[in-house]
């Protein structure tokens, strides 16, 4: 029996998209769909389908092997544990209403690693069978404990490749913090909620000037490549798009990772509307991307990008390159990355830590120093793929999409809700529809930006194949 592993979707702008299980795709008109339904495609169309691997004859063993290889190239190969998210303290010197982890007040005790926790973390690092390590310091505000960060960074010197990321609000920087930042292997991730007025309203209050001065000082000292800033957007009251872009570019920041308020931690209690995706968010996001395209075309001295859109784009065109954990498939839990909380508790993801902290569900996997790969770990991993799901099997975007079961638990308290009813699925459908709209947009400005976001040297005549 011949094999045609294609899925079909009518795009909002009129084309019909056909996506192979391996992610190869083309667009057609309505007439091709009609002929396919009637079983009478033109000989040229049949040849095209065969040549491009969309139609494989049953006796074609090499064709089947090539297809299987291409499908496999899209699957995550989580191997050795090489990525740790460490939370040396849950205390924070700010009190944002949508804090995702329900931080502890600055002077609270028992919210930092004890010396015993530190020892266990360092011993754990010694056991890792990898040549390269990435450590992300989360909080709370991790820079409140530079001593703990320094100890971890020193212990990581045995790895051939090291990368450290400090997620900091850049609120207070003293000598100890600057000494940490001086390490060339360390990167700084901070929050910048669009324009500074919004940032002030949502986060820093009267002390916004201090944050602004610190961000400027960090960029002056190290350059913008060392710093990433992420805006959290309230979809009900989003900041003006141009003012967000202007604020970022003023600091030399060209990658903007737009995020709606995450339905976690304090946000869960105080911003309940964040549970369900907001049409306004999709509209804002799309208008934002279109504005970037316009600005990139007018001023080609720099390339501005919305990070998540670029991630989705690379998932389509560059399988195996993009490891973004919220958008990979399968998305194994507690295999290649792990979270160690302020009290030594291990979690499969940072969002799982947030859920436990909010009292929603305990997704902890054990304590540092213990084997975490127990019953709960195995149960989570049973659900970590989008393969074999009846909705995903029918979805054109499955080869590019991921699986975020912790998000499903956060919103619905279960992992078996029908996928198309989840916020994750609805958001991904909208964003991939939009990405394909851009791919088939013939405007040279759009093609220029897409090519830059894909890190191509030139701009191809067309990124998307058409069967006409």
């Amino acid at each position, binding site marked *: *029996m011949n*094999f*045609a*592993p*294609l*899925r*079909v*979707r*009518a795009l909002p702008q*009129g084309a*019909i998209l056909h996506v192979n*299980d391996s992610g190869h795709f083309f667009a057609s008109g*309505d007439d091709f*769909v*009609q002929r*396919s*339904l009637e079983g009478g495609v033109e000989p040229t169309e049949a040849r095209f389908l065969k040549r491009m691997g969309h139609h494989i004859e049953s006796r074609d063993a090499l064709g*089947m092997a090539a*297809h*299987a290889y291409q*499908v*496999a190239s899209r*699957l995550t190969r989580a191997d050795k544990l090489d990525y740790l998210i460490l939370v040396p303290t849950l205390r924070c010197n700010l009190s944002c209403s949508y804090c995702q982890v329900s931080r502890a007040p600055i002077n609270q005790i028992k919210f930092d690693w004890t010396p015993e926790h530190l020892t266990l973390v360092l011993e754990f690092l010694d056991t890792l069978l990898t040549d390269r390590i990435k450590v992300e310091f989360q909080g709370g505000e991790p820079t409140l404990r530079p001593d703990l960060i320094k100890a971890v960074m020193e212990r990581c010197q045995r790895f051939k490749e090291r990368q450290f990321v400090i997620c900091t609000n850049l609120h207070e920087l003293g000598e100890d913090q600057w000494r940490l930042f001086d390490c060339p292997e360390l990167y700084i991730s901070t929050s910048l909620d669009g324009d500074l007025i919004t940032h002030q309203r949502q986060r820093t209050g009267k002390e916004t000037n201090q944050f602004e001065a610190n961000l400027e000082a960090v960029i002056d000292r190290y350059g913008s490549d060392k710093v990433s800033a992420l805006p959290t957007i309230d979809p009900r009251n989003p900041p003006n798009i141009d003012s967000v872009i202007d604020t970022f570019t003023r600091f030399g920041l060209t990658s903007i990772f737009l995020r709606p308020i995450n339905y976690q931690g304090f946000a869960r209690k105080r911003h309940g509307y964040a549970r369900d995706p907001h049409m306004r968010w999709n509209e804002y996001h799309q208008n934002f991307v279109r504005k970037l395209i316009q600005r990139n075309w007018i001023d080609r001295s720099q390339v501005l990008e919305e990070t998540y859109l670029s991630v989705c784009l690379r998932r389509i065109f560059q399988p195996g390159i993009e490891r973004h954990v919220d958008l990979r498939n399968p998305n194994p839990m507690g295999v290649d990355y792990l979270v160690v909380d302020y009290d030594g508790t291990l979690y499969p993801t940072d969002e799982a830590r947030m859920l436990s902290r909010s009292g929603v569900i305990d997704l902890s996997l054990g304590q540092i120093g213990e084997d975490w790969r127990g019953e709960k770990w195995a149960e989570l991993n049973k659900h970590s793929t989008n*393969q*074999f799901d009846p*909705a995903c*099997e*029918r*979805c*054109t975007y499955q080869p590019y999409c991921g699986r975020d079961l912790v998000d499903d638990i956060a919103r619905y308290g279960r992992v078996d809700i*029908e996928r*198309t*009813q989840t916020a994750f699925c*609805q958001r991904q*459908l909208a964003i991939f529809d939009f990405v394909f709209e851009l791919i088939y947009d013939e405007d040279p400005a759009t093609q220029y930006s897409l090519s830059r976001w894909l890190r191509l040297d030139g701009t191809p005549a067309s990124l998307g194949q058409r069967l006409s």
Partner: protein
Amino acid sequence: MARCVLKLPMDSAAGVEMTIHWLVRFYPQASATVDGHSIQLQSDSLSAVQLERIWHAALLNELQWTAARAQRRDVLQGLVQ
């Protein structure tokens, strides 16, 4: 509100039922009701032309899914092993 009434194919009853099931999930702007041998699609935001296009795409998707399902699973199972 746009409306589109289409004659159902007679030789793929099972495919039609599942097409309707999935169509309203993958295209939540549309609703669908069957009346005898025809289907009526409605939407507040889509035109009649768009509804017709969505129906044909969804039907082809379902028929191709049915035809390829077993081999698709064989490929994936082969990769898992």
